[in-house]
């Protein structure tokens, strides 16, 4: 029978599927960090249970670390306690940890792929909802809660209900200067914030196939923002070329065997999905969110919508509440909205290509005197490369702060928080109320638009500025 990519991954990982029990699947790779693991380790100890596969578990410190200092105490007592607890637990259970200042340390979803820990055809989980990022490699990857983290520790398996399947095709080619962030925000704008709840989404079509691995990660990263269990892109030559020779990628004969297996990982041409969505790439414009869910998004040359624009009563009420929180008036041109903060970073947009794209816009320009802008690379490897390529200096010369790697202002668990009334152009993934600080207002954008807005002090239509755009 014809199968989708998801169904193949599922079938390859089933340990037990019975009528009266939730299916049991194997987990190949478990990524952990300081915030969602301590209670799982504590329960393991309480029950005197072993961690089944320490070698399949990798830890990093990312969520609440300081981006100003590698000192473990630099982000406060609570953070330090969690970081030390992770250190202690990793030592006790034999888990490899990329701790403060380690050359492999980074945001978990940046670190995994760049080290070759993320492989096609595997199941990857992490106590973090943006684990969907790793689906860019054709891995079934999804976020889990702490009770599930404990289950994976003890058994290297999870109980999962089989998801429905959705195919999202982006036909043709995007215009010059349109980024992967614009593609995924445009998709979420179509589906709404819960459009894929209960589904695993497979992205396909020419515009997706043409993306680099880093761009594919940006797309898959935000799958959770429209409710999807996971996002997938079938692995191809782009995937294999990216992975070959990475630290943890298979080597020699194992590599050859792996690639042979990975080439089978695509949806059969006659496979059927439970749901379909098609977008024309040429119609996708630069995106900016205006509300408090990622689905409240429009294009930069548009205006703030009015509640009357929505026929669905829930969407209408959400629009009223969002405009109030965001301090915005219907009909305002997006390009007339001034911002005072810019954040370039997060597991969505902190990889080297993101920094190159932002630096290309910032080169030779100055951040507006009314804006504070920070750039937070996704990992120490990204940081080193950006410094070697001169990108860091470009940012510094333009007046951006160049910080140490971490999750930083995406969720503001450290001291990188906005204050009430701040309005931020952010390359992160969530514009929820208070996400970046109580009473603060977040607009999700691409790295290109974040950089351009930092310079202008307001959102700008990138087609009106003269700059070497990515993909041009």
């Amino acid at each position, binding site marked *: 029978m014809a199968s989708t990519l998801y169904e193949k991954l599922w079938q390859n990982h089933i*340990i037990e599927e019975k009528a009266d029990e939730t299916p*049991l699947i194997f987990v190949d790779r478990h990524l952990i960090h300081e915030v*969602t693991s301590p209670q799982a380790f*504590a329960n393991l100890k309480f029950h005197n249970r072993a961690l089944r596969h320490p070698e399949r578990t990798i830890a990093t410190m990312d969520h609440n670390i300081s981006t100003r200092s590698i000192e473990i105490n630099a982000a406060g007592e609570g953070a330090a306690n969690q970081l030390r607890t992770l250190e202690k637990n990793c030592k006790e259970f034999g888990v490899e940890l990329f701790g403060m200042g380690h050359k492999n340390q980074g945001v978990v979803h940046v670190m995994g792929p760049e080290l070759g820990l993320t492989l096609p055809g595997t199941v990857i989980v992490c*106590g973090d909802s943006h684990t969907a990022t790793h689906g860019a490699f054709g891995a079934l990857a999804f976020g889990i809660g702490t009770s599930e983290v404990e*289950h994976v520790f*003890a*058994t290297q398996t999870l*109980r999962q209900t089989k998801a429905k399947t959705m195919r999202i095709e982006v036909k043709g080619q995007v215009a010059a200067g349109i980024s992967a962030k614009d593609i995924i925000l445009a998709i979420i704008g179509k589906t709404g914030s819960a459009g894929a709840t209960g589904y695993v989404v497979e992205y396909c079509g020419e515009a997706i196939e043409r993306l680099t691995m880093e761009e594919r990660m940006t797309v898959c990263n935000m799958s959770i923002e429209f409710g999807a269990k996971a996002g997938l892109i079938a692995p191809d030559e782009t995937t294999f070329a990216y992975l070959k020779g990475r630290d943890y990628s298979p080597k020699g004969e194992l590599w050859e065997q792996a690639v042979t297996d990975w080439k089978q990982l695509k949806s059969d041409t006659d496979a059927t999905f439970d749901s379909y969505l098609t977008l024309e790439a040429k119609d996708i414009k630069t995106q900016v969110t205006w509300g408090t869910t990622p689905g409240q998004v429009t294009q930069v040359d548009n205006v703030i919508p009015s509640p009357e624009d929505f026929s669905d009563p829930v969407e209408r009420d959400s629009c009223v509440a969002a405009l109030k929180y965001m301090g915005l008036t219907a009909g305002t041109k997006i390009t007339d909205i001034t911002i005072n903060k810019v954040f370039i970073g997060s597991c969505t947009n902190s990889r080297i290509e993101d920094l190159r794209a932002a630096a290309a816009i910032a080169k030779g320009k100055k951040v507006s005197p009314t804006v504070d802008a920070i750039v937070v690379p996704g990992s120490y490897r990204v940081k080193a490369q950006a410094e070697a390529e001169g990108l860091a200096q470009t940012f510094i010369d333009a007046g951006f702060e160049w910080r140490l790697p971490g999750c930083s202002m995406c*969720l503001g668990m450290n001291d990188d928080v906005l204050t009430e009334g701040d309005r931020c152009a952010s390359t992160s993934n969530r514009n929820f109320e208070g996400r970046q600080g109580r009473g603060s207002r977040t607009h999700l954008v691409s790295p290109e638009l974040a950089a351009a807005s930092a310079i202008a002090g307001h959102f700008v239509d990138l087609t009106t500025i003269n700059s070497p755009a990515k993909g041009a």
Partner: protein
Amino acid sequence: MENFTQHYGLVVPLDAANVDTDQIIPKQFLQKTTRTGFGQHLFNDWRYLDNDGKVNNPEFILNKPEYKDASILLTGENFGCGSSREHAPWALQEYGFKVIIAPSFADIFYANCINIGVLPITLTAAEITELFKQSKDSLQHLTVDLATSKVKSADKEYSFTMTPFHKYCLENGVDSVGWTLNKIAKIESYEAKMPAWQ
């Protein structure tokens, strides 16, 4: 995990869609290494006017005195979206909620609730609208019976569905890790057949 069979309690209607886990428990309270201590910070930014959690927002429905003992949360679609933080259902549970009723839940949040013994119930949008109306008109108590999958008001019954295994785990307070460890032979047999690169 505590087992769940039946619950009778007061409903508090929180009429909002897409309530994300950042609202349920904001990030500044995620630095604990325990499963407790989250209930006092539930819905912090909506519930308190100050940053120290000392000044109640009188407008927020959980702060209204008549809802003080509520144990059933009635809410809008896509409840629990966003971050996977299990701290969100921990906070709801510690505050005193045993049951959450909504037209839909985010997937990870739903699984987290099942895993800690909070009952997430999905009813149709029309049924939710009806329950909201009743709960806003006057204080409403509901009986939730897991064995028969029914929610009962004074004059009406609503049916919900749940997978048999989820139901079994909730009814019996199953230790899911222990349950799976009993199947270790099956896991070992899977591991023995995996390709070497995997």
